[in-house]
């Protein structure tokens, strides 16, 4: 192992193991929370976007385009610094809450667009089948269309989740100590750059692999692949 220490010094990384583990745990739970919330709101945005009412889909479309056209970094700053300036009670959210809100607002449009294409990919006959047995619009959506749509869009959902996990790296700009912050702390103190950055990368990769494994499991359990013979 000693020869490897030339490239990657385990001893120094070992000193920061706790910092990395704390950062990873923070990143995981923040990502998980944002994932659940943005997925949930994404369903609403997708439904709004598909509405036939002009003012409803226009609002959704404007929100989607605006958020997607501007960087997350700036969205976080605007919410963190800008909100207190605009509202007297803008300070009610602390750093972690602000981070969660910002990333959820940022990810919801992406989720919404994925869910929308998923819904549109479900065969039209499925909705007619549901209506013909007397299910109302909400019931058709809830029992028939959404479960199939979600199973259809697992690949892009995993892709978006991977992006979401990496996006949490920006939280250190508002003092939320997550995984990237752990890497930067190690780097700043020891200035061993390769170890700091490679370790950070490996930790993100671990979380990503965890996501892949879990999503495979979830796909089997919830979506049920049994019904898709191909």
């Amino acid at each position: 192992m000693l020869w490897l220490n030339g490239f990657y010094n385990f001893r120094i990384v070992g000193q920061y193991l706790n910092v990395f583990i704390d950062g990873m745990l923070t990143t995981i739970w923040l990502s998980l929370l944002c994932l659940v919330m943005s997925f949930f709101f994404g369903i609403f945005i997708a439904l709004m976007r598909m509405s036939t009412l002009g003012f409803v889909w226009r609002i959704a479309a404007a929100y989607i385009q605006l958020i997607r056209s501007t960087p997350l970094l700036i969205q976080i700053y605007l919410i963190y610094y800008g909100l207190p300036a605009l509202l007297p009670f803008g300070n009610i959210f602390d750093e972690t809450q602000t981070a969660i809100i910002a990333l959820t607002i940022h990810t919801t449009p992406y989720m919404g667009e994925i869910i929308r294409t998923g819904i549109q990919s479900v065969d039209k006959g499925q909705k007619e089948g549901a209506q013909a047995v007397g299910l109302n619009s909400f019931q058709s959506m809830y029992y028939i269309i959404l479960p199939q749509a979600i199973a259809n869009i697992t690949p892009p959902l995993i892709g978006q989740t991977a992006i979401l996990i990496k996006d949490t790296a920006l939280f250190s700009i508002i003092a939320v100590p997550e995984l990237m912050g752990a890497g930067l702390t190690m780097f700043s103190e020891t200035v061993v750059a390769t170890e700091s950055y490679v370790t950070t990368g490996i930790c993100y990769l671990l979380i990503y692999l965890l996501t892949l494994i879990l999503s495979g499991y979830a796909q089997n359990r919830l979506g049920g692949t049994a019904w898709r013979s191909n």
Partner: protein
Amino acid sequence: MKDPIIRIENVSKQFGTLKALDGVTNQIQRGEVVVIIGPSGSGKSTLLRTLNGLETVSEGNVYIDGVNIVDTRVNINKLRSKVGMVFQHFNLFRHKTALDNIIMPQTVVLNRKRKEAEDVARKLLEKVGIPEKAGNYPDQLSGGQQQRVAIARSLAMHPKIMLFDEATSALDPETVGGVLQLMKDLATEGMTMVVVTHEMGFAREVADRVIFMDGGQILEEATPDEFFDRPKNSRTITFLSQIL
């Protein structure tokens, strides 16, 4: 004259510039079996779909069991559970097993207990002849089996009327027979049925009345014998000559 279960009054349906239905008027009695035939694009599916509100009409009224379903105040979902519909492409819920396809609408729409719904479902699977396929997903069933599940799913709602839109044309000839037999059984049990089909043998054997449509209009209606042996309308005559 008896009180008809379906009354179609001067119904028109416009798709853009196209008149898919053009002033259709008709009445269907309880227990009657009506077969609709006609060339492709003549409006058969559109007419059937207006009968359970899948298609809104542009003009006219449709009364099901005395209720005008064109009226927007009517709870169309409740009404739909009275009118079963079986599609050409089956439209089984792909993410549910055969059994769950039949159970789910009962629990959701009729608020039946799962236990009760399951009993109904299993009896119906028995009736359509595939009790052993309860656990299969639609993709694991042959076309004929899927169509049987679709019929069972409709029957589970205790409909007063069954609509069939080319229920056999996606099936291979061998399995057509079984599904047609099932429909015949329903007819003898006194179910009111409106059937769009290309199976002239079935029409002749089961129908109480045959309706011929073209260009969104009813051009001819008659008993099967009269229709097939002494068609009157010239369009009907051309159509029959090509198909038989």
